[in-house]
């Protein structure tokens, strides 16, 4: 076993990537067998967008609403796989001992984290692509080509900070509690970050309060690509998003140290 590990490590970066992809495949297939996760994750954003962004807007003179909602529902679309994957998935694996088992294999921690993020990105990419197709061909949304790419890039990159939120929850909460906490945060953060309906429809103090949520900053960054953000500077959202991610990672690290020390 030790000899194997040594040989594996010698294989270097490419081999690590191979392992990471392998773990990604396992986790992805695992999710597909969990319709309670996969179906709502994929269908909720699409259903909401179809209803509010397409059917509700038929015949309007302006495409502002369907364009705006494309960005916010796409962020909503990556929020679920990101925080559920880490928050619930991690807590579950830890509580059932699966994580302990994995720690005995030669798989590096980095590969495990890569796989979790990778799976969230796969689900996110499926949601984003489906939303884009709905927006472009059903709602009539038109964006410059660079805007389509930039919007996709911003939203998929958003998997990272949102995963950090899930990681922090998963590192501390027990499985049952994690499900509750993640659900609460998922709904609360979606609404209060302006992902379900435009942030400017919220009362002023709630608009200020939205600054505590990474999903709000991610939403504003996505909206900035299509000129529909609230007009705060780019660095403001990047700085807060970066800071919030750092805090989440620190919280997660503390949680793992406690887990390891047990």
């Amino acid at each position, binding site marked *: 076993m030790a000899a*194997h590990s040594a*040989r*594996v490590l010698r*294989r270097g970066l490419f081999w690590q*990537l*191979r392992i990471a*992809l*392998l773990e*990604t*495949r396992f986790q992805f297939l695992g999710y597909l067998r969990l319709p309670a996760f996969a179906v709502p994750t994929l269908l909720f954003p699409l259903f909401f967008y179809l209803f509010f962004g397409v059917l509700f807007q038929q015949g*309007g*003179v*302006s*495409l*502002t609403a369907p*364009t705006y909602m494309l960005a916010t529902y796409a962020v909503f679309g990556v929020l679920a796989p990101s925080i559920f994957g880490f928050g619930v998935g991690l807590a579950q694996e830890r509580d059932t001992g699966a994580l302990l088992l994995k720690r005995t294999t030669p798989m590096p921690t980095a590969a495990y984290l890569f796989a979790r993020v990778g799976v969230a990105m*796969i689900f996110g*990419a499926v949601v984003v*692509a489906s939303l*884009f*197709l709905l927006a*472009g*061909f059903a709602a*009539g*949304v*038109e*964006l*410059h*080509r660079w805007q*389509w*790419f930039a919007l*996709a890039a911003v939203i998929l990159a958003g998997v990272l900070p949102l995963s950090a939120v899930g990681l922090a929850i998963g590192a501390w909460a027990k499985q049952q509690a994690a499900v509750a906490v993640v659900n609460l945060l998922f709904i609360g953060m979606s609404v209060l970050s302006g992902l379900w309906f435009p942030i400017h429809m919220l009362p002023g103090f709630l608009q200020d309060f939205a600054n505590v949520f990474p999903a709000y900053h991610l939403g504003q960054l996505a909206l900035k690509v299509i*000129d*529909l953000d609230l007009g705060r500077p780019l660095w403001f959202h990047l700085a807060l998003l970066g800071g919030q991610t750092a805090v989440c990672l620190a919280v997660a690290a503390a949680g793992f140290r406690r887990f390891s020390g047990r």
Partner: protein
Amino acid sequence: MSDVAAAERSPWRRDPWIALAAVAVFAGIVMILPVPEPADPPGGPLPETNFAVVDVTVFDGEAFRPHRDVWVEDGRIRAVGQRLALPDGLPRVDGRGHTLLPGLIDAHTHTYGMMLTDALRFGVTTVFDQFTMPSLAAAKRPARERLARGDESDLFSAGNLATAPGGHGTQFGVPVETLTTPEEAAAFVRARKEEGADWVKIVWEDGGTFGADIPTLDRETIAAVIEAAHAEELLAVIHASTLEHSLAALDMGIDGFVHVWGDEVISEADAARFAEAGVFVIPTLSVRVAAAGESMGPALLEATEPEHVSPMQRQTLTQTFPRPVGTSEAAVESVRRLHAAGVRILAGTDAPNPGTGFGISMHGELRLLERAGLSAAEALAAATGVAADAFGVEDRGRLARGRIADLLLVAGDLESDLSRSAAIAGVWKDGFPVEAAWTLPQEPQ
């Protein structure tokens, strides 16, 4: 999996290729998504009647709104908004890097010569004339009631002003109907209304501020004219050159002032009275600074391509008053206080008085209003939405659904640099581009 070599041969080898294929499929989907129809940058021939200016910063008559589309249909504004659902094949002007605003309204001019063409070339699509021949005003009236290609801005006018025999306004060689007593006021105003005057302008000028002694209407007659105008449902505005006369006119119920006085700075308490009365003031700082010997004319000429300036514009811009009257500081400070108190300020130039030019001086007036403490948006509102509202002209002065497509497109961001207002990239009148007006008839060499 005890053998690493076995893993090498396993189907998991394909994982990187699957990942790459997934990325390619995703990129392929993004590549087929719809993009906007191409928009032409301004600079070439501009579209007419039915078109859109897309992704432009709009000044709508009140405020700046970035990234708007403005859709013109049959010479009127069909819609203003973000990301309009524009019909296929509609000509589009790329508005990025530009500001689109309603055609400017010069609220104090005197119509003369090629004035309306000169004004239009500089984005002034409507003028509020404060004294011209009623016959001339009548001749120009039909143009403002239809949407058609033309090379003149639209004219609204007081026509014949209310002044005393031999008083201010009678010195230009134009026949002027005058009056002397309050008893004549009602008939005088009714005659103006029948001539087609859009409002009544009253002159209260004894020449004191420039060392002359000229006949003027007495207070009772002025009060009677204001009352008669209101009885005919016309606005009454006044030329008063001192603060004292202006305060007296305020008490008589005047609706607006066509100049700011230059003799004294108004107190904050009196400015508050102006605000409370709801009157408007057209300071005409362009002519005030020129009268004080600080004309903006030469600077405006310097900043403008010579081929855009008509001989008449050049002539009036370089003229000077015989001797300085008042100080510009007092006038500017009064405007600052009036504005701070909440009094409606309108942009007007009093062209073609010495030191001013039709149209071109509006761009100088905007800067002077900025000097008096108005923000870029407030100065532009003074030249658009506020002016239209003050004179009850409903289908101009704003970029909004149903308004006439009188448009001024300028290169740059006016919010951060109001001097860009003269960087004209296009003017539309009734939805027709007037770039033809840029080409002045050249004098033979």
